[in-house]
């Protein structure tokens, strides 16, 4: 039986996880690109990403691209599993018993 995950259920984090889970297994997305796509601010996105990273749902990798620091975000297998479980739990609430 899947349970709702309070970490994922927060609206901004729900947005972030659903977006990241759309990416391929080995893909990472640039922080600014994710921010623009989700319509979040730097601070807001950064704080939520830190929460998700602390839980082991995502990884943050910093590197230099053309001499500029960039942060790439990727979802972990544990994050995918937790998100799938959360979606299943939401769907089960809507199913008639």
């Amino acid at each position, binding site marked *: 039986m899947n*349970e*709702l*995950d*309070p970490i994922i*259920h927060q*609206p901004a984090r*729900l*947005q*972030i996880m*659903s*977006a*990241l*889970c*759309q*990416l*391929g297994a*080995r*893909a*990472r*997305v*640039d922080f600014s*690109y994710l921010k623009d*796509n*989700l319509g979040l601010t730097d601070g807001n996105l950064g704080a939520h990403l830190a929460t998700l990273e602390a839980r082991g749902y995502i990884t943050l990798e910093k590197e230099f*691209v*053309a001499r500029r620091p*960039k942060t*790439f975000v990727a979802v972990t297998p544990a994050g995918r599993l937790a998100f799938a479980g959360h*979606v299943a739990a*939401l*769907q089960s*609430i*809507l199913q008639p018993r």
Partner: protein
Amino acid sequence: MNISPDEAAKALQEIETSREAMRRAIRTHRGHVYLWIWGGAWVAMSLVNWAYDQGALRANFWISGAGLVATLLIGYVQGRQIRSKVDRRFIGVCATLLMFGYFVWPLLLGDLRSYDFHSYKAAYAYFTVLWMQLYMVAGIWFANFWFWIGLAVTALTVATLLLLPALFWAVTLLLGLVLLGSGFYVRYGWR
């Protein structure tokens, strides 16, 4: 944690909205730009080959070179937004196929210019099929549509060369247009 069915429905709706936004973003990172570049290059090469036959060899190198530069440039720009970790085994397989196709087989089996390739068209088909191997490997590796493009182009190229050589350049032109069209389908029609 307990929520009402209304809240659950709202959350699922938010998930779908977010997924759709990301799907749109990812769509711009699919292979359609490369299909446009190489479809365009292919059309151009077919036209000059049709007009000048072997005299178009030099033009082919320039067109391929332009395609390669455009590919690398777009790959660089896209890699700054969404990037996949480089799969070294995939790169290794592609490099091996190209090395054998360009150097090992021609050296082992004879110089491409003197080897009985029986026509410039056959040599053109050889390199087309060589590059289509990479499409098929990419399609198998990443489980996507590139495999089918590679297979279809290989089959049509070889069949035309063997069965309808007089129509060879017309068919390569058509294949180039199909690549261009596939790019439009991937960009605008694929969900």
